[in-house]
Protein backbone atom coordinates (compact mmCIF):
# COMPACT_ATOMS: atom_id res chain seq x y z
CA UNK A 1 0.00 0.00 0.00
CA UNK A 2 1.25 3.48 -0.87
CA UNK A 3 0.29 6.50 1.19
CA UNK A 4 -0.19 9.60 -0.95
CA UNK A 5 -0.39 13.10 0.50
CA UNK A 6 -3.36 15.25 -0.47
CA UNK A 7 -2.37 18.79 -1.40
CA UNK A 8 -3.25 21.22 1.36
CA UNK A 9 -3.68 18.44 3.89
CA UNK A 10 -0.30 16.74 4.07
CA UNK A 11 2.16 17.26 6.91
CA UNK A 12 5.32 17.29 4.82
CA UNK A 13 4.52 20.29 2.64
CA UNK A 14 2.62 20.28 -0.61
CA UNK A 15 5.64 19.84 -2.85
CA UNK A 16 5.07 16.12 -3.30
CA UNK A 17 1.37 16.00 -2.51
CA UNK A 18 -1.29 15.40 -5.17
CA UNK A 19 -4.54 17.16 -5.91
CA UNK A 20 -7.88 15.53 -5.23
CA UNK A 21 -8.34 14.71 -8.92
CA UNK A 22 -4.87 13.19 -9.13
CA UNK A 23 -5.44 11.17 -5.98
CA UNK A 24 -8.78 9.90 -7.24
CA UNK A 25 -7.23 8.82 -10.55
CA UNK A 26 -4.78 6.46 -8.83
CA UNK A 27 -5.38 2.86 -7.81
CA UNK A 28 -4.59 1.02 -4.60
CA UNK A 29 -3.51 3.91 -2.43
CA UNK A 30 -4.32 5.35 0.97
CA UNK A 31 -4.71 9.10 1.20
CA UNK A 32 -2.84 11.09 3.79
CA UNK A 33 -4.60 14.03 5.46
CA UNK A 34 -2.30 14.38 8.44
CA UNK A 35 -2.23 18.14 8.74
CA UNK A 36 -4.39 19.31 11.64
CA UNK A 37 -7.42 21.17 10.32
CA UNK A 38 -10.97 21.46 11.52
CA UNK A 39 -12.34 17.95 11.92
CA UNK A 40 -15.60 18.64 10.14
CA UNK A 41 -13.79 20.02 7.12
CA UNK A 42 -11.53 16.95 7.09
CA UNK A 43 -14.54 14.65 7.13
CA UNK A 44 -16.11 16.56 4.24
CA UNK A 45 -12.89 16.16 2.26
CA UNK A 46 -12.74 12.45 3.10
CA UNK A 47 -16.16 12.08 1.51
CA UNK A 48 -14.75 13.38 -1.78
CA UNK A 49 -11.96 10.80 -1.79
CA UNK A 50 -12.94 7.65 -3.64
CA UNK A 51 -10.36 5.47 -1.90
CA UNK A 52 -11.37 3.40 1.07
CA UNK A 53 -8.36 4.15 3.26
CA UNK A 54 -7.28 7.49 4.77
CA UNK A 55 -4.77 8.54 7.41
CA UNK A 56 -5.89 11.25 9.84
CA UNK A 57 -4.42 13.36 12.62
CA UNK A 58 -7.48 14.95 14.24
CA UNK A 59 -9.64 13.26 16.82
CA UNK A 60 -13.10 14.26 15.62
CA UNK A 61 -12.22 13.38 12.03
CA UNK A 62 -10.85 10.01 13.12
CA UNK A 63 -14.10 9.28 14.91
CA UNK A 64 -16.50 10.52 12.22
CA UNK A 65 -14.64 9.37 9.12
CA UNK A 66 -14.32 5.88 10.62
CA UNK A 67 -18.05 5.47 9.97
CA UNK A 68 -17.41 5.33 6.22
CA UNK A 69 -13.65 4.90 5.71
CA UNK A 70 -10.85 2.72 6.90
CA UNK A 71 -8.96 5.20 9.10
CA UNK A 72 -5.36 4.94 10.19
CA UNK A 73 -4.47 7.14 13.14
CA UNK A 74 -1.44 9.18 12.12
CA UNK A 75 1.82 8.94 14.05
CA UNK A 76 1.19 12.63 14.73
CA UNK A 77 -1.40 11.57 17.32
CA UNK A 78 1.46 10.05 19.35
CA UNK A 79 -0.01 6.70 20.22
CA UNK A 80 1.95 5.76 23.34
CA UNK A 81 0.19 2.88 25.06
CA UNK A 82 -2.68 0.41 25.14
CA UNK A 83 -5.10 2.99 26.54
CA UNK A 84 -4.55 5.07 23.42
CA UNK A 85 -5.16 2.03 21.24
CA UNK A 86 -8.40 1.20 23.04
CA UNK A 87 -9.62 4.75 22.66
CA UNK A 88 -8.97 4.75 18.92
CA UNK A 89 -10.61 1.36 18.72
CA UNK A 90 -13.66 2.79 20.52
CA UNK A 91 -13.76 5.59 17.94
CA UNK A 92 -13.82 2.99 15.16
CA UNK A 93 -10.33 3.44 13.70
CA UNK A 94 -8.75 0.69 11.64
CA UNK A 95 -5.09 1.12 12.61
CA UNK A 96 -2.71 3.34 14.56
CA UNK A 97 0.88 4.22 13.76
CA UNK A 98 3.33 3.80 16.63
CA UNK A 99 6.25 6.25 17.02
CA UNK A 100 9.54 4.62 16.00
CA UNK A 101 10.99 5.24 19.48
CA UNK A 102 8.51 2.65 20.74
CA UNK A 103 9.40 -0.06 18.23
CA UNK A 104 10.93 -2.36 20.83
CA UNK A 105 7.64 -2.30 22.73
CA UNK A 106 5.34 -3.20 19.83
CA UNK A 107 4.91 -6.75 21.20
CA UNK A 108 3.32 -5.28 24.31
CA UNK A 109 0.61 -3.43 22.42
CA UNK A 110 -2.74 -5.18 22.73
CA UNK A 111 -5.96 -4.42 20.94
CA UNK A 112 -9.00 -6.35 19.91
CA UNK A 113 -9.45 -5.12 16.37
CA UNK A 114 -7.12 -2.16 15.86
CA UNK A 115 -4.10 -2.93 13.67
CA UNK A 116 -0.66 -1.73 14.65
CA UNK A 117 1.51 0.02 12.12
CA UNK A 118 5.21 0.43 12.97
CA UNK A 119 8.07 2.11 11.17
CA UNK A 120 10.58 -0.14 9.43
CA UNK A 121 12.48 2.95 8.39
CA UNK A 122 12.00 6.36 9.90
CA UNK A 123 13.59 9.58 10.97
CA UNK A 124 13.93 9.70 14.72
CA UNK A 125 13.61 13.34 15.64
CA UNK A 126 14.28 15.59 18.62
CA UNK A 127 10.73 15.00 19.86
CA UNK A 128 8.04 12.43 19.24
CA UNK A 129 6.46 12.96 15.84
CA UNK A 130 3.44 15.17 16.32
CA UNK A 131 4.79 16.59 19.58
CA UNK A 132 7.13 19.25 18.18
CA UNK A 133 6.24 22.94 18.10
CA UNK A 134 9.78 24.17 17.68
CA UNK A 135 9.22 25.29 14.12
CA UNK A 136 6.21 27.40 15.09
CA UNK A 137 8.07 28.76 18.09
CA UNK A 138 11.05 29.87 16.03
CA UNK A 139 9.53 30.88 12.73
CA UNK A 140 5.76 30.78 13.02
CA UNK A 141 5.55 27.85 10.59
CA UNK A 142 3.62 25.04 12.20
CA UNK A 143 4.36 21.46 11.22
CA UNK A 144 1.02 20.30 12.46
CA UNK A 145 -1.11 23.03 10.95
CA UNK A 146 0.86 24.34 7.97
CA UNK A 147 2.72 21.16 7.12
CA UNK A 148 6.00 23.01 7.15
CA UNK A 149 9.04 22.19 9.28
CA UNK A 150 11.80 24.78 9.44
CA UNK A 151 14.16 22.20 10.98
CA UNK A 152 15.35 24.35 13.86
CA UNK A 153 16.44 21.16 15.63
CA UNK A 154 19.33 20.84 13.17
CA UNK A 155 20.95 24.06 14.39
CA UNK A 156 24.09 23.91 16.42
CA UNK A 157 23.02 24.62 19.98
CA UNK A 158 25.33 25.88 22.69
CA UNK A 159 24.60 24.17 25.97
CA UNK A 160 24.77 26.29 29.12
CA UNK A 161 24.56 24.89 32.63
CA UNK A 162 24.46 27.24 35.61
CA UNK A 163 25.43 30.00 33.19
CA UNK A 164 28.57 28.18 31.95
CA UNK A 165 28.92 26.84 28.40
CA UNK A 166 29.62 23.14 28.64
CA UNK A 167 29.03 21.74 25.15
CA UNK A 168 27.55 22.09 21.69
CA UNK A 169 24.88 19.80 20.36
CA UNK A 170 22.44 19.36 17.50
CA UNK A 171 19.34 17.26 17.16
CA UNK A 172 19.37 16.54 13.45
CA UNK A 173 16.82 13.81 12.58
CA UNK A 174 18.48 10.45 12.28
CA UNK A 175 17.36 7.95 9.67
CA UNK A 176 16.97 4.54 11.30
CA UNK A 177 16.10 1.15 9.91
CA UNK A 178 14.31 -1.29 12.20
CA UNK A 179 13.66 -4.99 12.28
CA UNK A 180 10.17 -4.81 13.71
CA UNK A 181 7.07 -6.97 13.53
CA UNK A 182 3.62 -5.42 13.38
CA UNK A 183 0.42 -5.68 11.35
CA UNK A 184 1.78 -3.08 8.94
CA UNK A 185 5.32 -1.85 8.47
CA UNK A 186 5.77 1.66 7.21
CA UNK A 187 8.81 3.01 5.36
CA UNK A 188 9.12 6.74 5.71
CA UNK A 189 10.35 8.16 2.42
CA UNK A 190 8.02 10.98 1.53
CA UNK A 191 10.11 13.73 3.07
CA UNK A 192 13.41 12.41 1.77
CA UNK A 193 14.97 13.88 -1.36
CA UNK A 194 18.55 12.77 -1.10
CA UNK A 195 19.58 10.24 1.50
CA UNK A 196 19.19 11.80 4.91
CA UNK A 197 17.77 15.09 3.71
CA UNK A 198 14.35 16.27 4.78
CA UNK A 199 13.03 18.47 2.02
CA UNK A 200 11.72 21.34 4.10
CA UNK A 201 14.94 21.59 6.03
CA UNK A 202 17.27 21.29 3.10
CA UNK A 203 17.35 25.02 2.51
CA UNK A 204 17.50 25.97 6.16
CA UNK A 205 20.71 27.89 6.83
CA UNK A 206 21.03 26.13 10.17
CA UNK A 207 20.74 22.65 8.70
CA UNK A 208 23.90 20.73 7.98
CA UNK A 209 22.04 17.70 6.69
Amino acid at each position, binding site marked *: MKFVGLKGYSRYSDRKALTLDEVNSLENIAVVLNRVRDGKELVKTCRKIRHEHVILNELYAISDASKFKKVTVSVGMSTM*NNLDLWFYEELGAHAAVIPPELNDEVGGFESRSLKIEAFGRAFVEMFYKGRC*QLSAYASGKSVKRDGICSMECARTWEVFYSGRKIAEVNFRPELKVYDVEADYIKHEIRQIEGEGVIEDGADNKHSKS
Partner: protein
Amino acid sequence: MELTTNIPNLESMSECSIKPYDSIYLGMPYCWEYEGNLISGGDDLISAVEVLHSMGKKAYITTFAVPRNRDLDRVFRTVDVAAEICDGIEASNLGVIRYITKEYPDVSVIAGGLTNVYTASTAELLYSIGVSRIVPSYELSIEDIEKIKETGVEVEVVVHGKVPVGIGHECFLRKFSSAVGKDCPKICREEMFFRSEDLVLKPFGHATLSGKDVCMYEHIDKLRFADAFRIEAVTERIGYRERVGRIYRDLLERGFSRSDFEELRSISENGFANGYYFNRAGQIYIPG
Protein backbone atom coordinates in the same frame (compact mmCIF):
# COMPACT_ATOMS: atom_id res chain seq x y z
CA MET B 1 -11.20 34.15 36.99
CA GLU B 2 -9.32 31.22 38.45
CA LEU B 3 -5.56 31.73 38.79
CA THR B 4 -3.62 28.47 38.72
CA THR B 5 -0.05 27.28 38.85
CA ASN B 6 1.84 24.02 39.18
CA ILE B 7 4.07 22.67 41.94
CA PRO B 8 6.25 19.58 41.48
CA ASN B 9 7.02 18.57 45.08
CA LEU B 10 6.36 19.36 48.73
CA GLU B 11 9.66 21.20 49.03
CA SER B 12 8.41 23.85 46.56
CA MET B 13 5.15 24.26 48.40
CA SER B 14 5.60 27.18 50.74
CA GLU B 15 2.51 29.01 51.97
CA CYS B 16 3.73 32.23 50.31
CA SER B 17 4.08 30.56 46.93
CA ILE B 18 0.52 29.24 47.06
CA LYS B 19 -1.20 32.30 48.46
CA PRO B 20 -1.86 34.26 45.23
CA TYR B 21 -3.48 31.26 43.51
CA ASP B 22 -6.95 29.74 43.54
CA SER B 23 -5.83 26.29 42.44
CA ILE B 24 -2.65 24.29 42.20
CA TYR B 25 -1.68 21.47 39.84
CA LEU B 26 0.39 19.02 41.85
CA GLY B 27 3.20 16.94 40.35
CA MET B 28 5.87 17.13 37.67
CA PRO B 29 4.44 15.83 34.37
CA TYR B 30 7.74 15.77 32.45
CA CYS B 31 9.78 13.34 34.55
CA TRP B 32 9.04 10.56 37.03
CA GLU B 33 12.48 10.80 38.60
CA TYR B 34 12.25 14.46 39.60
CA GLU B 35 13.09 14.62 43.30
CA GLY B 36 9.98 14.40 45.46
CA ASN B 37 7.68 14.34 42.43
CA LEU B 38 4.23 14.30 43.96
CA ILE B 39 2.94 11.88 41.33
CA SER B 40 5.73 9.35 41.80
CA GLY B 41 4.05 7.67 44.79
CA GLY B 42 4.22 8.03 48.53
CA ASP B 43 2.20 10.00 51.03
CA ASP B 44 3.41 13.43 49.93
CA LEU B 45 0.55 13.78 47.49
CA ILE B 46 -2.05 13.29 50.21
CA SER B 47 -0.23 15.77 52.48
CA ALA B 48 -0.04 18.32 49.67
CA VAL B 49 -3.76 18.08 48.95
CA GLU B 50 -4.53 18.45 52.67
CA VAL B 51 -2.39 21.60 52.85
CA LEU B 52 -4.16 23.12 49.84
CA HIS B 53 -7.62 22.30 51.10
CA SER B 54 -6.79 23.73 54.52
CA MET B 55 -5.86 26.97 52.76
CA GLY B 56 -9.12 26.96 50.81
CA LYS B 57 -7.40 26.19 47.50
CA LYS B 58 -8.39 23.66 44.87
CA ALA B 59 -6.01 20.76 44.34
CA TYR B 60 -5.63 19.35 40.85
CA ILE B 61 -3.30 16.45 40.25
CA THR B 62 -1.35 16.08 37.06
CA THR B 63 -0.16 12.88 35.39
CA PHE B 64 2.94 11.90 33.45
CA ALA B 65 2.60 13.51 30.02
CA VAL B 66 3.94 10.73 27.78
CA PRO B 67 3.16 7.39 29.42
CA ARG B 68 4.27 4.23 27.65
CA ASN B 69 2.77 0.86 28.61
CA ARG B 70 5.48 0.40 31.24
CA ASP B 71 4.33 3.64 32.94
CA LEU B 72 0.65 2.80 33.14
CA ASP B 73 0.69 1.06 36.53
CA ARG B 74 2.18 4.18 38.09
CA VAL B 75 -0.36 6.35 36.27
CA PHE B 76 -3.21 4.14 37.54
CA ARG B 77 -1.91 4.40 41.12
CA THR B 78 -1.77 8.22 40.87
CA VAL B 79 -5.25 8.39 39.35
CA ASP B 80 -6.73 6.02 41.96
CA VAL B 81 -5.45 8.21 44.79
CA ALA B 82 -6.24 11.46 42.99
CA ALA B 83 -9.83 10.48 42.28
CA GLU B 84 -10.46 10.11 46.01
CA ILE B 85 -8.92 13.33 47.24
CA CYS B 86 -8.53 15.99 44.57
CA ASP B 87 -10.68 18.50 42.69
CA GLY B 88 -9.57 17.44 39.24
CA ILE B 89 -7.03 15.38 37.30
CA GLU B 90 -4.95 16.74 34.46
CA ALA B 91 -3.79 14.37 31.71
CA SER B 92 -2.13 14.98 28.37
CA ASN B 93 -2.39 11.47 26.98
CA LEU B 94 -5.65 10.71 25.19
CA GLY B 95 -5.75 7.13 26.42
CA VAL B 96 -5.33 8.22 30.02
CA ILE B 97 -7.99 10.89 29.55
CA ARG B 98 -10.43 8.28 28.27
CA TYR B 99 -9.50 5.89 31.08
CA ILE B 100 -10.32 8.53 33.73
CA THR B 101 -13.58 9.67 32.13
CA LYS B 102 -14.74 6.04 31.97
CA GLU B 103 -13.53 4.78 35.34
CA TYR B 104 -14.16 7.95 37.34
CA PRO B 105 -17.04 9.75 35.61
CA ASP B 106 -17.56 12.08 38.58
CA VAL B 107 -13.99 13.39 38.54
CA SER B 108 -13.19 16.62 36.68
CA VAL B 109 -10.77 15.88 33.89
CA ILE B 110 -8.50 18.55 32.49
CA ALA B 111 -6.86 17.92 29.12
CA GLY B 112 -3.40 19.45 29.51
CA GLY B 113 -1.57 21.60 26.99
CA LEU B 114 0.35 18.65 25.58
CA THR B 115 -2.84 16.81 24.62
CA ASN B 116 -2.64 18.59 21.28
CA VAL B 117 -6.12 20.06 21.22
CA TYR B 118 -5.91 22.22 18.09
CA THR B 119 -9.50 22.38 16.94
CA ALA B 120 -12.99 23.09 18.22
CA SER B 121 -14.04 19.74 16.79
CA THR B 122 -11.50 17.86 18.93
CA ALA B 123 -12.60 19.91 21.94
CA GLU B 124 -16.22 19.03 21.21
CA LEU B 125 -15.41 15.33 21.12
CA LEU B 126 -13.42 15.46 24.36
CA TYR B 127 -16.19 17.45 26.05
CA SER B 128 -18.71 14.85 24.94
CA ILE B 129 -16.75 12.06 26.65
CA GLY B 130 -16.51 13.94 29.94
CA VAL B 131 -13.51 16.27 29.75
CA SER B 132 -14.46 19.37 31.70
CA ARG B 133 -11.56 21.69 30.92
CA ILE B 134 -9.03 22.02 28.13
CA VAL B 135 -5.67 23.73 27.99
CA PRO B 136 -5.55 24.28 24.21
CA SER B 137 -2.41 23.49 22.27
CA TYR B 138 0.19 26.14 23.03
CA GLU B 139 0.43 26.74 19.28
CA LEU B 140 -3.02 28.32 18.99
CA SER B 141 -3.95 31.94 18.46
CA ILE B 142 -6.51 33.77 20.60
CA GLU B 143 -9.13 33.38 17.83
CA ASP B 144 -8.61 29.62 17.70
CA ILE B 145 -8.90 29.36 21.49
CA GLU B 146 -12.13 31.36 21.42
CA LYS B 147 -13.58 28.77 19.02
CA ILE B 148 -12.71 26.03 21.51
CA LYS B 149 -14.39 27.99 24.30
CA GLU B 150 -17.55 28.23 22.16
CA THR B 151 -17.99 24.45 22.42
CA GLY B 152 -18.95 24.88 26.08
CA VAL B 153 -15.86 23.29 27.59
CA GLU B 154 -13.90 25.30 30.17
CA VAL B 155 -10.69 26.76 28.81
CA GLU B 156 -7.47 27.42 30.71
CA VAL B 157 -4.67 29.42 29.10
CA VAL B 158 -1.08 30.05 30.05
CA VAL B 159 -0.61 33.74 30.80
CA HIS B 160 2.95 33.55 32.06
CA GLY B 161 5.89 31.17 32.11
CA LYS B 162 7.79 28.80 29.90
CA VAL B 163 5.67 26.61 27.64
CA PRO B 164 6.71 23.28 26.15
CA VAL B 165 7.91 23.38 22.53
CA GLY B 166 8.21 19.62 22.36
CA ILE B 167 8.32 16.37 24.26
CA GLY B 168 10.24 13.25 23.43
CA HIS B 169 11.47 9.90 24.61
CA GLU B 170 14.61 11.06 26.41
CA CYS B 171 15.81 13.62 28.92
CA PHE B 172 18.34 15.89 27.23
CA LEU B 173 19.90 16.97 30.53
CA ARG B 174 21.13 13.43 31.09
CA LYS B 175 23.21 13.62 27.89
CA PHE B 176 25.45 16.08 29.74
CA SER B 177 25.81 14.28 33.05
CA SER B 178 29.55 13.76 32.67
CA ALA B 179 30.21 17.32 31.46
CA VAL B 180 28.31 18.67 34.44
CA GLY B 181 29.48 16.10 36.98
CA LYS B 182 25.94 15.45 38.16
CA ASP B 183 23.49 12.73 37.35
CA CYS B 184 19.75 12.32 37.59
CA PRO B 185 17.98 13.52 39.69
CA LYS B 186 20.50 16.15 40.88
CA ILE B 187 21.25 17.50 37.40
CA CYS B 188 17.99 19.46 37.11
CA ARG B 189 18.55 21.30 40.39
CA GLU B 190 20.30 23.95 38.32
CA GLU B 191 19.15 25.37 35.01
CA MET B 192 20.29 24.24 31.59
CA PHE B 193 19.63 26.24 28.42
CA PHE B 194 20.25 25.54 24.74
CA ARG B 195 21.15 28.71 22.85
CA SER B 196 21.45 29.32 19.11
CA GLU B 197 21.46 32.88 17.85
CA ASP B 198 17.99 34.27 18.62
CA LEU B 199 16.59 31.06 20.09
CA VAL B 200 16.77 29.83 23.67
CA LEU B 201 15.32 26.57 24.92
CA LYS B 202 15.13 25.03 28.35
CA PRO B 203 15.36 21.23 28.41
CA PHE B 204 13.67 19.66 31.39
CA GLY B 205 12.93 15.95 31.71
CA HIS B 206 11.22 14.64 28.59
CA ALA B 207 10.06 18.16 27.68
CA THR B 208 11.87 21.11 26.17
CA LEU B 209 10.44 24.47 27.07
CA SER B 210 10.59 27.94 25.59
CA GLY B 211 13.62 29.69 27.08
CA LYS B 212 11.69 32.92 27.13
CA ASP B 213 8.75 33.47 29.44
CA VAL B 214 5.42 33.76 27.70
CA CYS B 215 4.02 36.99 29.15
CA MET B 216 0.47 38.18 28.60
CA TYR B 217 0.52 40.77 31.38
CA GLU B 218 0.08 43.67 28.95
CA HIS B 219 -2.56 41.80 26.92
CA ILE B 220 -4.56 40.17 29.68
CA ASP B 221 -7.88 41.67 28.60
CA LYS B 222 -7.71 39.76 25.31
CA LEU B 223 -7.82 36.50 27.27
CA ARG B 224 -10.57 37.33 29.74
CA PHE B 225 -12.99 34.98 27.94
CA ALA B 226 -11.04 32.04 29.40
CA ASP B 227 -12.08 30.33 32.63
CA ALA B 228 -8.63 30.06 34.16
CA PHE B 229 -5.21 31.67 33.81
CA ARG B 230 -2.16 29.53 34.43
CA ILE B 231 1.28 30.61 35.59
CA GLU B 232 3.63 27.87 34.33
CA ALA B 233 6.16 27.45 37.11
CA VAL B 234 6.73 23.72 37.43
CA THR B 235 10.40 23.95 36.43
CA GLU B 236 11.12 27.30 38.02
CA ARG B 237 13.46 28.31 40.80
CA ILE B 238 12.37 29.27 44.30
CA GLY B 239 10.60 32.61 44.47
CA TYR B 240 9.39 32.71 40.86
CA ARG B 241 5.94 31.23 41.54
CA GLU B 242 5.30 33.57 44.46
CA ARG B 243 6.43 36.78 42.75
CA VAL B 244 4.73 36.12 39.42
CA GLY B 245 1.55 34.92 41.14
CA ARG B 246 1.38 38.02 43.31
CA ILE B 247 1.81 40.28 40.26
CA TYR B 248 -0.96 38.56 38.29
CA ARG B 249 -3.27 38.50 41.33
CA ASP B 250 -2.78 42.26 41.63
CA LEU B 251 -3.37 42.66 37.89
CA LEU B 252 -6.70 40.84 38.15
CA GLU B 253 -7.81 42.74 41.21
CA ARG B 254 -6.29 46.20 40.79
CA GLY B 255 -5.26 46.53 37.15
CA PHE B 256 -2.06 47.26 35.28
CA SER B 257 1.04 48.42 37.13
CA ARG B 258 4.15 49.56 35.27
CA SER B 259 6.38 48.67 38.21
CA ASP B 260 4.94 45.16 38.44
CA PHE B 261 5.49 44.71 34.71
CA GLU B 262 9.11 45.80 35.12
CA GLU B 263 9.47 43.35 37.99
CA LEU B 264 8.27 40.56 35.70
CA ARG B 265 10.96 41.60 33.23
CA SER B 266 13.61 41.41 35.93
CA ILE B 267 12.50 37.89 36.89
CA SER B 268 12.69 36.58 33.34
CA GLU B 269 16.24 35.49 32.56
CA ASN B 270 15.77 35.29 28.77
CA GLY B 271 13.11 37.89 28.09
CA PHE B 272 9.46 37.71 27.07
CA ALA B 273 7.44 36.16 24.27
CA ASN B 274 3.71 36.14 23.54
CA GLY B 275 3.68 32.50 22.65
CA TYR B 276 1.42 31.92 19.68
CA TYR B 277 -1.49 34.07 20.77
CA PHE B 278 -1.05 36.63 18.00
CA ASN B 279 -0.50 34.20 15.12
CA ARG B 280 3.20 34.98 15.04
CA ALA B 281 6.33 32.98 15.83
CA GLY B 282 6.02 31.86 19.44
CA GLN B 283 9.25 33.52 20.55
CA ILE B 284 8.26 37.05 19.48
CA TYR B 285 7.05 39.60 22.01
CA ILE B 286 4.58 42.26 20.91
CA PRO B 287 4.39 45.08 23.43
CA GLY B 288 0.91 46.12 24.61
